[in-house]
């Protein structure tokens, strides 16, 4: 690592690196302490190995970003060793642990030297130790193929292939084939399985595995676009299927996107064109683009006011530039939106396992059909839809699908079908969850609702049945089984879909099928809001325009030039009462909340009775011209089906939000302005 290279890196980036590196090094140290207990055991505690692996992997990644090749190389070689341990091919002995500790120490030394801009310590002998560990394992346990030590070149190719497959939106699957005499008698052998796998995707790697008692298995790493729906068929052929790496489940986690910095390449890292971006950063980007749109519209207004005859400006040229700016801005917003789109396969991929596990516990036979897996939807939607869809599939299995005997009696094929189908319709996405089970019996639902004391709708149609199904506390089961029956699921499904600005509908033919249809917007505008309340009216104020939250009492409010105001910093802050905006009488409170809202037009204090909290909400546009009013930028929902208006900070500061016009005793509207 030369001084010239580091000097081009921004200090900020380096600070981030050191902070993150310390975190991972700490994690590595802790994992190694825990790993001591695994020395000499047949297999090291997989959870600890996994933690260690993850820390090393992240550490390797950030080392590559700052171009710290030595620490990257050490982390990489250590990972190789761990990989063998993780796959159960290696036991952890005292020597192995010693080498791992040496790696950890070396990484710390490298980072410390890098931080102090001192010459970096050598690490070649450690690399040799690590390789020796890998080699001893590879040669001692694998007698099948001249697999030998996996060279760096081989690893690099594999990594390239993996990254490449990911970049193409393929999912990685681990197919493990355990041959047996019985299977061989049926004509199922290594070559047959290999051929079959080639029809569904690309085999990136095949590794022989040795299990206890001399049993052999083969592990294939397959990159495929589609989620296998026939894992039961595979299992019959002695093949187990696993998702090679579970996509991250945390909301707000990173997504794959964009190009990688050329600088970050090193002989130890395969060239990659993928970088992980925190969703939050994309949201920031979108917010900035949104602000630019607002600034541009102000520019528009200013240009409109220019006098073409004044001769001091070439109005045509200015308009042209402005038009170009508008186009670029639109493209920018679209590009950001596209980055957020990921294939729905990310959710679908879990379903075959869910269905298989459920089928194992019961006698039901189910075939899963997945359609439209490459339908791309917003990452935020993916995260939010994971649980609702899982619930719908479980419901379909538990409540819809019958036992093979019941199905035979109803002259249906023994094997039931659960179908998941995603498609885009215009600017919305539709996801269907359909089963060909016993359908829904409206009478049974109504009776159960009565028994539970729920409100009974007057009409019997699918909408009212759905309403009952989605009421919290409704369950058709008296005892909760594993798959469904806790009576909270459908209510959560319904609330989530609604919160995302979508709709949920249901259709069912008794004895034949049930179908849930989710309609959702393809992309979402999400923003951080402060939720405030006054006189029973709840409103949302964009967090971005709130500078400060203060408390105030009535005594502090003074009249200044006929306007209510409170002392604020060195001057006064004019106030607007939230209740007044809606022409409602505010409830007297000893202490009121005051939101200091600032925009380039000035500052204003919004007086509210309570602040209910801060929330990330889905912003919905007010499309109809009847409700496109100044001061309101959109609406959202907090889970109860009631629209909550989003106030426009800039309009508040400019004083253009006036109260709702109330009607007097005669019923005639009497317009009233806000001032005084």
């Amino acid at each position, binding site marked *: 690592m030369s001084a010239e290279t580091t000097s081009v890196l921004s200090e900020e980036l380096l600070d981030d690196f050191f902070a993150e590196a310390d975190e991972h090094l700490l994690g590595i140290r802790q994992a190694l302490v825990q790993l001591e207990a695994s020395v000499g055991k047949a297999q090291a505690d997989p959870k600890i190995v996994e933690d260690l692996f993850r820390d090393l992997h992240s550490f390797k990644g950030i080392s590559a970003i700052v171009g710290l090749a030595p620490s990257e190389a050490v982390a990489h070689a250590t990972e190789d060793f761990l990989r063998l341990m993780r796959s159960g091919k290696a036991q952890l002995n005292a020597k192995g642990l010693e080498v791992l500790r040496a790696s950890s120490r070396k990484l710390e030394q490298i980072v410390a030297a890098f931080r102090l801009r001192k010459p970096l310590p050598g690490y070649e002998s450690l690399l040799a130790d690590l390789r020796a560990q890998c080699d001893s394992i590879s040669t001692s346990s694998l007698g099948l193929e001249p697999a030998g030590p996996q060279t760096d070149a081989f690893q690099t190719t594999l990594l390239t292939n993996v990254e490449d497959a990911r970049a193409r939106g393929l999912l990685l699957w681990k197919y493990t084939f355990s041959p047996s005499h019985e299977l061989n008698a049926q004509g199922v052998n290594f070559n047959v399985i290999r051929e079959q796998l080639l029809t569904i995707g690309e085999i990136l790697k095949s590794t022989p595995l040795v299990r206890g008692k001399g049993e052999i298995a083969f592990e294939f790493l397959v990159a495929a676009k589609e989620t296998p729906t026939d894992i039961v068929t595979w299992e019959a052929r002695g093949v187990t299927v696993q998702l090679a790496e579970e996509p991250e489940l945390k909301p707000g986690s990173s997504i794959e996107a964009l190009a990688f910095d050329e600088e970050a390449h090193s002989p130890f890292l395969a060239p990659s064109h993928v970088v992980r971006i925190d969703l939050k950063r994309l949201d920031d980007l979108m917010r900035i683009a949104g602000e630019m749109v607002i600034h541009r519209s102000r520019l528009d207004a200013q240009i409109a006011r220019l006098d073409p005859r004044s001769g001091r400006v070439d109005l045509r040229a200015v308009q042209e530039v402005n038009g170009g700016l508008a186009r670029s801005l639109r493209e920018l917003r679209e590009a950001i939106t596209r980055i957020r789109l990921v294939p729905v396969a990310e959710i679908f991929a879990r379903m075959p396992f869910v269905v298989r596990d459920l089928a194992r516990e019961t006698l039901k036979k189910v075939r899963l059909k997945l359609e439209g897996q490459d339908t791309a939807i917003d990452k935020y939607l993916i995260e939010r839809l994971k649980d609702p869809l899982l619930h719908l599939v479980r419901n379909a299995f538990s409540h819809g699908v019958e036992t093979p005997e019941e199905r035979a009696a109803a002259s249906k094929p023994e094997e039931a079908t659960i179908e998941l189908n995603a498609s885009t319709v215009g600017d919305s996405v539709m996801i269907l969850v359909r089963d060909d089970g016993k359908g829904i019996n409206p009478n049974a639902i109504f009776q159960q609702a009565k028994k539970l004391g729920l409100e009974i709708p007057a009409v019997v149609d699918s909408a009212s049945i759905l309403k009952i199904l989605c009421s919290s506390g409704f369950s058709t089961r008296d005892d909760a089984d594993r798959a469904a029956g806790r009576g909270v699921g459908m209510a959560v499904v319904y609330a989530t879909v609604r919160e995302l600005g979508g709709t949920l509908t249901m259709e069912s033919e008794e004895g034949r099928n049930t179908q849930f249809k989710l*309609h959702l917007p393809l992309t979402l505008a999400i923003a951080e809001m402060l939720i405030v309340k006054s006189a029973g*009216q709840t409103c949302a104020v964009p967090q971005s325009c709130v500078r400060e939250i203060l408390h105030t009492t009535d005594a502090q409010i003074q009249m200044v030039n006929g306007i209510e105001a409170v002392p604020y910093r060195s001057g006064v802050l004019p106030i607007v009462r939230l209740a007044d905006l809606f022409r409602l009488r505010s409830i007297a409170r000893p202490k009121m909340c005051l939101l200091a809202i600032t925009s380039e037009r000035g500052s204003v204090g919004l007086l509210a009775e309570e602040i209910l909290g801060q929330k990330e909400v889905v912003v919905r546009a*007010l*499309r109809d011209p*009847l*409700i496109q009013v100044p001061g309101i930028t959109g609406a959202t929902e907090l889970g109860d089906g009631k*629209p909550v208006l989003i106030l426009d900070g800039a309009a508040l500061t400019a004083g253009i939000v*006036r109260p709702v016009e109330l009607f007097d005793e005669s*019923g005639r509207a009497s*317009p009233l302005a806000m001032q005084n």
Partner: protein
Amino acid sequence: MSANLESYVLFELAGSVYGLPSRGVQHIEMFEHVTLVPNANPSIDGVVFSRGQVIPALNLRVRFGFPREKNTLRTRIIFVTIHDRTVGLIVDTAREFRNLSRDAIRPIDETLTGINGKYLKAVTKVSERLVLILDLEAILNVDEVQSPHSSQAIPAQNATV
């Protein structure tokens, strides 16, 4: 349905029966909650969610110049769609769907064009009761809704002190 019949939704408003062609009606709901909207026209009681969209709820009594009345259990919102717009109309109560004969629907009589005449399209009779057929397009005409009040622009308040 015979070619000569057309389905209408019949509803009540201030003692009269009105009709809207069913094909423009999306669904009808009980009046539960509307969120007030500052700055909106007086006839807009607020907004409601319907099928994931934020929909204006227009008080037909106010629109037609009748006195406002408190919402009751019978109050309904009729969601109508026209030219890709969906608007909820708040009415006293919705009565029924009825197939009306096209032959029996007559153009509006001049003498009937009173306070809400411009929103009426035709008239017919259902079991001896007069049913006024509405002109949705005229009711939802934005300029028309905005004009009576919004012409008085509120001067921007200068907030600097």
